[in-house]
């Protein structure tokens, strides 16, 4: 399991200590389209990263490579010491340790909230139903939706559904949570309840990689903001520095657009 031969990445602002995720010289192609260009990124344990950039810049692609929803052409990705390859062993190892929250919630419509939360712990981890339920109720409590445990997704609001999706991922007790624009599909009045949940998670020490354009959230919890354009990481800095004085012209124009929309 432990791969000690991994080189320390030479990324600016790389966190100290044994990183949880290390991406080195990652290149991803969709057919003839070069979606990730030599991406180097290392995420420390407990670190919170906000990933931003214009549409089509490869943010989703980047985080989807981490749990192998996408396969890479070259470079290497290591998650908690497991070097990702195509073997089912590495896929299984990584996916059960990495939680993901999608823009469109993706709750399973034919299962109750509780069933959504117990499915993977029971089927992937082999946990007994009673224990899986107890864990699920604990996390549903934590995202403050326990009273809806018996309902079906279609009976919940968007914000409630997204909080269930967060609880569902947490039930696997992952080491890192990936968020892909978790509030973009929500009505404005529901954005806050989801962001508050994420802030709580951050406070509890979860390692998080969040694709989001919620700059308030980035300011509040991010250790590092990473700016991407055209498949490249162009800039990374702590949020204060990034928002106050972005160095790259593309980052400046991007921030200008974001602010104009808010």
């Amino acid at each position, binding site marked *: 399991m432990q791969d000690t031969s991994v080189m320390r990445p030479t990324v600016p602002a790389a966190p100290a200590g044994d990183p949880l995720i290390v991406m080195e010289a990652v290149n991803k192609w969709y057919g003839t389209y070069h979606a990730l260009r030599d991406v180097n990124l290392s995420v420390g344990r407990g670190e919170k990263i906000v990933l931003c950039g214009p549409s089509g810049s490869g943010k989703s692609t980047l985080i989807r490579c981490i749990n192998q929803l996408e396969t890479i052409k070259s470079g290497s990705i290591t998650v908690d010491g497991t070097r990702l390859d195509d073997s089912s062993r590495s896929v*299984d190892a990584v*996916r059960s340790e990495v939680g*993901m929250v*999608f823009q469109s919630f*993706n709750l399973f*419509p*034919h299962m109750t909230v509780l069933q959504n939360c117990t499915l993977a712990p029971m089927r992937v981890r082999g946990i007994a139903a009673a224990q899986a339920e107890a864990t699920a109720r604990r996390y549903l409590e934590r995202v403050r939706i326990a009273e809806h445990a018996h309902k079906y997704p279609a009976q919940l609001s968007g914000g409630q559904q997204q909080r269930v999706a967060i609880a569902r*991922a947490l039930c696997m007790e992952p080491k890192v949570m990936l968020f892909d624009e978790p509030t973009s599909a929500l009505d404005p009045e529901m954005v806050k309840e989801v962001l508050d949940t994420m802030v709580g998670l951050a406070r509890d020490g979860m390692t998080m990689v969040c694709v989001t354009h919620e700059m308030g959230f980035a300011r509040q919890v991010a250790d590092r903001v990473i700016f991407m354009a055209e498949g490249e990481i162009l800039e990374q800095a702590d949020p204060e520095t990034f928002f106050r004085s972005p160095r790259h012209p593309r980052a400046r124009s991007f921030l200008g657009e974001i602010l104009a929309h808010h």
Partner: protein
Amino acid sequence: MPLGYTLDFSVVLDALPALLWGCAGTIGLALAGMALALVIGIGGVVLRGSKHRPLRSLVIVFVELIRNTPFLVQIFFLFFALPNIGLVLNPTVTAIIALGVNGGAYAIEIIRGGVQSIDKGQVEAGLALGLHKGQVFRMIVLKPALRAIYPSLTGQFIMLTLTSSICSAIAAYELTSVAQRIESETFRSFEVYFTITLMYLAISWLLMTGFSVFSRRYFLYPTR
């Protein structure tokens, strides 16, 4: 109706028990055929999405072969040709296989449409949770997919039930062959076929009622 022909339903009345047994035979054939068709349909969809090209091609060829040849020829093939290679089946078993295989080919296409209608985010969410592809299909995709195409699938199953009358050609035990026998003994063709027409109508109605009861119990969850 020829002039001077007088209707006489008393023969039908005398043959009623036999006809009702025929109805039971038809329903039995149909239910067994549906079960087989469902298994072939779901299995076919899985193979159709396999990463092994020969398996995918096999399913495509199967579907094309069955959907572009007459059912009567298919059942004759099973009944008369297979004994030549040492496979002798009784008429009812042959009929069930023929109905299941034929219905299965149509079911593959219908169920595949249902599977394709499922948002790929559902699959990704399952994979991201660590479930394997097979588990994702069984536990996440299948039920909503079946719900999406339930009306087409049950419509196809009604077709399968009515098609079972063709199994009279190999004297399988079902309503039409019972009717043929009674007709040949009594020469009361109009009365007999009029009666079984109503009986087929009743069988279809019964099945449709069954399908809708099943759907209310199985697809409990609300959508939107």
